[in-house]
């Protein structure tokens, strides 16, 4: 049985990197006694896959991990057990049974929504929303993408699906997945560049709000798929 877990990552937990979050969940699932399935072979491991790594320093309301279990367990009981065994900063929010034909979380992601604010004392002297609005009227928004081997210019405009003013900063829905992956830091950097300033990524307070599957016309959050187990 395939299960999709949604959890939030807050506070000091933002300093725990993706690999350590994976290790954390392996141990959490054992402590909570969730009947997880194991792979076969010489060194069996828990069947578990995360939707999308979250960088160190980012918080999130919507992280997803798919697991497989060997016997049914009520969603409510599972959530309670997991949260009883978890630390402050990691809260399991849903535990849903996926239809047999559901694609795994990682393969199905299409977009992610972020809220970007600024650490106290590092607020910009302009409105990111206004500037992005202005930039969006241009035919393209080019950013320099650096890899270990090369540098290339990428137009991220088609990957910015929507954005709004959140009061303290900006909220944006960005393309992710294998085709065009836009990071919130890149958008902010290009806004600053547009203003002739340099953004310091360390001073951004970024929070992932949701991860979506579906299409640009019909965004479906990953926890809309699947049903609670009674």
């Amino acid at each position, binding site marked *: 049985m395939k299960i999709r877990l949604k959890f939030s990552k*807050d*506070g*000091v*937990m933002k*300093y*725990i*990197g993706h690999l*350590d979050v994976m*290790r*954390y969940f*392996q*141990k*959490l*699932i*054992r*402590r909570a006694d969730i009947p997880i399935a*194991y792979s076969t072979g*010489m*060194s*069996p491991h828990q069947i578990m896959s995360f939707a999308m790594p979250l960088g*160190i*320093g980012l918080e999130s309301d919507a992280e997803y991990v798919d697991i497989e279990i060997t016997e049914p367990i009520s969603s409510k009981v599972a959530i309670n057990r997991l949260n009883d*065994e*978890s*630390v*402050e*900063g990691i809260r399991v929010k849903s535990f849903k049974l996926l239809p047999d034909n559901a694609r795994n979380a990682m393969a199905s992601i299409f977009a992610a929504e972020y809220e970007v604010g600024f*650490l106290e004392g590092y607020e910009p002297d302009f409105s990111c929303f206004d500037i992005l609005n202005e930039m969006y009227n241009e035919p393209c928004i080019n950013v320099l993408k650096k890899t270990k081997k090369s540098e290339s210019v990428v137009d991220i405009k088609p990957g910015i699906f929507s954005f709004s003013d959140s009061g303290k900063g900006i909220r944006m829905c960005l393309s992710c997945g294998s085709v065009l992956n836009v990071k919130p830091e890149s958008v902010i950097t290009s806004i600053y560049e547009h203003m002739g300033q340099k953004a310091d990524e*360390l*001073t951004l307070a970024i929070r992932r709000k949701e991860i979506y599957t579906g299409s640009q016309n019909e965004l479906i959050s990953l926890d809309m798929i699947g049903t609670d187990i009674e």
Partner: protein
Amino acid sequence: MKKTALSEEILLTVEKPARYIGNEVNSIVKDKDKVDVRFAMCFPDVYEIGMSHLGIQILYSMLNTFEDVWCERVYSPWIDLNKVMKDLNIPLFALESQDPVKDFDFLGITLQYEMCYTNVLQVLDLSHIPLYSSDRDWSHPIVIGGGPCTYNPEPLADFFDLFYIGEGETNYRKLIDLYKTCKSNGSTRNEFLRCAAGIEGIYVPSMYTVSYNTDGTISSFEPIYDDIPRVIHKAIVMDLSDTFYPTKPIVPFIKVTQDRVVLEIQRGCIRGCRFCQAGMLYRPVRERNVDLLKSYAADMLKCTGHEEISLSSLSSSDYSSLKELVDFLVEYTGSRRLNISLPSLRIDAFSLDVMSRIQDIKKSSLTFAPEAGSQRLRDVINKGLTKEIILDGASQAFLGGWTRVKLYFMLGLPTETEDDLRGIAELSNDIARLYYELIPKSERHGRVQIVASSSFFVPKPFTPFQWAAMDSRDSFLKKAHFVNDCMHEQLNSKSIKYNYHEADVSVLEGVFARGDRRLSKVLKTAYEKGCLFDAWTETFNEQPWLDSFNECDVSIDFYTTRERSLDEILPWDMIDTGVSREFLKREWENALNGRITPNCRAACSGCGASVFGGGVCYENKA
């Protein structure tokens, strides 16, 4: 929401910020307004090393069972954060509350190896606590040292207010009660220290004066008051089943060295290897009850979620219920898809059977620690392992499918000759040859892999070798090169890999292991020159150390290559471990004559540890 002592900008720029945030599963957070005593327990090395230490977990959990005490953890900030904290003058903090250590009542520092001593100074310095005990007042924490290095605490004497000699489970309650009394009744800090000296196992270095002969040896070691004890008896737990066990160990977020449940099955060792300090310090052997161990194991696996459990002791094969315990663990972990990692067990039919059940033979290796290359020298060090035993174990293992063997040796043992060194290469070769004789060509998958490693012997206090001369750095290296050459002469040299440790670190370890109070200024000088994390190859730097010895006019050779006379006053003579000086002398003579001493279960050799009234000394005397 939990606060952090370090700002977000700092945490996001240092390596592994998870080292500094606390919040781990099973870490203990109390209301600081509801406790009387704040205790910061420190392992002066990086988080991943410190978190792997069982002793701290035991004391942390125990102290936190006291309602009036909140014990938190402190580790050495790695060099990247060290620099930031010094530059920005940020005080060192404890992980749980993120509060500055300088505001605590106690700072306990465990001393597990000599090469962490500059890190001790770092912890004091970053905490903004005066380095010297004499410069502290009631506004500073009481700085207390524990762990194996406190059996010769003298090189650190000036930096600590107290040392706790022995096992921590016994007298912390008394010490904390005394502290509370002294703080509330208007006693001075010095009066508290003087009273603390009356608690068993507590050594207060400032209450003693040392004078020296013209040749540099100690002429007298005297208490400064009549009520200060001349001898400090180690504190020891005699009933290990009735004592405290940390069944809810902390689970780190990042991968640490010991990323598993650790089950301490016994303390002490019956073997009596003459080079081994732990084997002498922790006498007599005391076992934990096997039924309790089974329930601890299950509890700890459950409440940590770890996927592996390992056994801890000096010589697990000597634990009398080992088979029962291991059978239980194999069954328990097997059905839950967990793993067991076994410590180096004696290689025999039983251990090979267990290993073949729990691990992939192709990937695992066998470990032997002959320590010396010839039978003569193994008799000198009382390592009761013969070539026959090794070859017999190896042949069973080869027939069982193993193809990898690790061998551990020491160079620079007392009475060592070139023949003994050549023996290391010959023994390695004999094991390789055995493989090719036993396993027909058609059944081999490539070569057998023999990895021989050697460390340099460092004489330690409270061992029969405490009087022995240690080799110089040059002599160590010459020996290592000689062994390396001998390895190349072997017929099967292509199947053997030989590694040896760094000699410069071993020399320093030798200085501090048997050092005295005069070394504190060398230590402070070296720290001021930037020496830190000396146990790490990547950060160890020998030159500033050599400069520090020069500047302080302290001779390295005085502490290392000099053989002590049997009547010399040794810096650690005020400590009584239960093992008598007469026994150690007898063993030193036995060593020089190549006479072996039977293990504690085979026959009692009258070491003195029976004074504690329990353990192996009384096993069959009910």
